[in-house]
């Protein structure tokens, strides 16, 4: 069973890895769509993070195990993708999945 603290850590990590790798990800992007996707992912990860902090400071939220596991696994997939220097479209798909999992995690905690 995950704690609210662990869930917040996953959201924190998702935003950090998105913005800290932005320059490297963009330098590898070959298409406009890929560039736009990377930038949109940062904006979504940012929204997820600040909503999570506001939520953490105002309500504990119930257990959201499935969403937490999905978000944590998505982070591991993104890390592996970067380390394997996978093609940007592949990485972008995983970035989107990771941030979407984090957004679902927050939605579940809000419910």
């Amino acid at each position, binding site marked *: 069973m995950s704690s609210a603290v662990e869930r917040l850590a996953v959201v924190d990590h998702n935003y950090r890895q998105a913005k800290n790798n932005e320059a490297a990800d963009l330098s590898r992007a070959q298409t406009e769509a890929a560039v736009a996707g990377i930038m949109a992912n940062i904006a979504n990860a940012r929204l997820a993070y*600040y909503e999570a902090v506001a939520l*953490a400071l105002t309500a504990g939220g119930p257990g959201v195990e499935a969403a937490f596991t999905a978000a944590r696994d998505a982070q591991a997939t993104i890390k592996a993708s970067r380390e394997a220097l996978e093609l940007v479209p592949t990485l972008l798909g995983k970035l989107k999945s990771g941030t979407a999992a984090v957004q679902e995690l927050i939605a579940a905690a809000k419910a």
Partner: protein
Amino acid sequence: MVTTEMSWRGGGVPGLGRAKANLESVRLPMSRYACATLVAVLLSACSGIDRDSAKALGGAGQKATQAMADQTALAARTTGSLSEWWAVRDTLSCIHRQVDSRPGCIADKAATDPDARLTAAQKQIGEIMRKRSDAAVALRNAYQAFANLATYDAGAETEAALQGAFGAVNELTAAVAVLAPGLTALAPISSTFTTVVSSAGGIVASERQRHLLLVASRDLHRAINTMIAALTVELDQAAVTSLLGMLVSERMDVYAGLVHSGVITPVEALTPLLTEIAPGAKPSAQANSDVVRATAVASIKQRARQEEAAVKSTYEATLAAFRALSAEHRRLENDKSVDVSVILAQSQRIEAIAKAVFKKQEKGGSQ
């Protein structure tokens, strides 16, 4: 009053009716005298607060609570600045686009309104941090009044300050209590200072002052213990330390973007490093190559990590200062000598980090 009056009435010896009637005529003035005497005797027996120790603890309490107030007020202000930082950072990131697609990227960023949900979360966080700062400021005022009470008759000032502090602390703990339902340490607290002031009239002034100091210390002690309970709620602690670190990270992102884009020269960004390892060195103006720019950004990222760790540690330092305050209140109330060195050391540490990391952004972002 009730106890004294009953002792007069208790003397129901048969045949003493007249004497009793005479006594009845002087009962009220004498009962006041007896009450005042009794209170004075009781206070002499129980009040052992040393005024100099109280003054020292009051001063240390002001430092510790001021440090927390500064830290949280700066975090609130920084949260308010985020919209501009994000707009700048996101527009600067267009530098990473191919030259022919940059105008489109810049136009997109200029046309994008801030996300309403993000703005709402940002506002909510700012308000929470401001409430924390308000609670710390109210406690600082109460410690100031406590120190004044050790110097002169500041009973009314202390009473008002304690009421204000308890109100602000209750507001903070009510918000945190949602995160830890059932935690009795976060139950609302109330001051006992008013009652004691009104019932302690007529006694020797110095004893009255020492007794008021004892009651005020117990009030502050309870308020600090409640603050400790609030600050140690795990989720609250995790969220606030994450936020403090993220605010540093956001600032450094903008800084790195300004270096990437050429607004700040890499040499300027490397100045802290040069000062550290080669003081007095004159960096070459010819050195502004891509490699030097990348080096400057690497240096910024490393410094960001160090600053994040330092800022996060101020949360623990605040707790350490408050715990030491609580321990010294206990000693003061038990007529033992007070040592405020730990409180002052932790407070100075928080102030130094806040000054080094947060306040420089108020001076225009120079590193």
